[in-house]
């Protein structure tokens, strides 16, 4: 879990219920991605609300590449978190 504390003391991170964020301050949340099962491709895909898809190679693609499916949901979620946290 990556937590970024800004110079003014505000915090940026991916949402978690693990720590009581509302007790720390005013929380604002916006969706970063959608993880869905693609029946045609037989696997899980990650699409970002800012645009683009996450390829199985961990790179952003403008459109869904043929190989941009993850065999398991856990793998898709892990790759998505890794990608998003690297850009916090």
């Amino acid at each position, binding site marked *: *879990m*990556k*937590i*970024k*504390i*800004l*110079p*003014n*003391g*505000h*915090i*940026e*991170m*991916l*949402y978690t219920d*693990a*720590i*009581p*964020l*509302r*007790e*720390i*301050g*005013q*929380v*604002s*949340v*916006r*969706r*970063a*991605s*959608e*993880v869905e099962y693609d029946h045609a491709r037989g696997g899980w895909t990650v699409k970002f609300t800012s645009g683009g898809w996450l390829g199985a190679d961990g790179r952003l693609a403008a459109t869904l590449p043929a190989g941009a499916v993850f065999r398991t949901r856990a793998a898709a*979620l892990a790759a*998505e*978190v890794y990608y*998003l946290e690297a850009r*916090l």
Partner: protein
Amino acid sequence: MSHFTKVATKINDLDALSAALDKLGYAHERGGRVRAWDGSEIDAAVKIAPPGTHYAIGVVPSGADADGGVSYELVADWWGLETTLGRTQGAITDEIARAYALARVSAACEAAGYMFEGEPVEQADGSIVLIATQWGG
């Protein structure tokens, strides 16, 4: 799927504030009176004595939160602090807010069973990055 989250940190835990002030090397005490910008004296929950100046910073209640808790704000004779420390009010309050957020988040993570990989890393823009992992994870 993930959600980007921003937390506008509020000072509402005086123990975490004390821990933060200790890390900054700021002497402080519970209670006390502090001179505000208009020369008036006000009662403070915490009185902070930054090094290098005789001007103090007061931690005073800023009102009740929606959940009934109390948040605090920093008040001081900021002109006096700025001229004696050579730093702006914003720089001083940001420094305290950042240290407080670090102490608050660190305590919350540890209470939830997380440990930190290494020390917090300060970035070029003044932000601090923490990497927390769960015990056994």
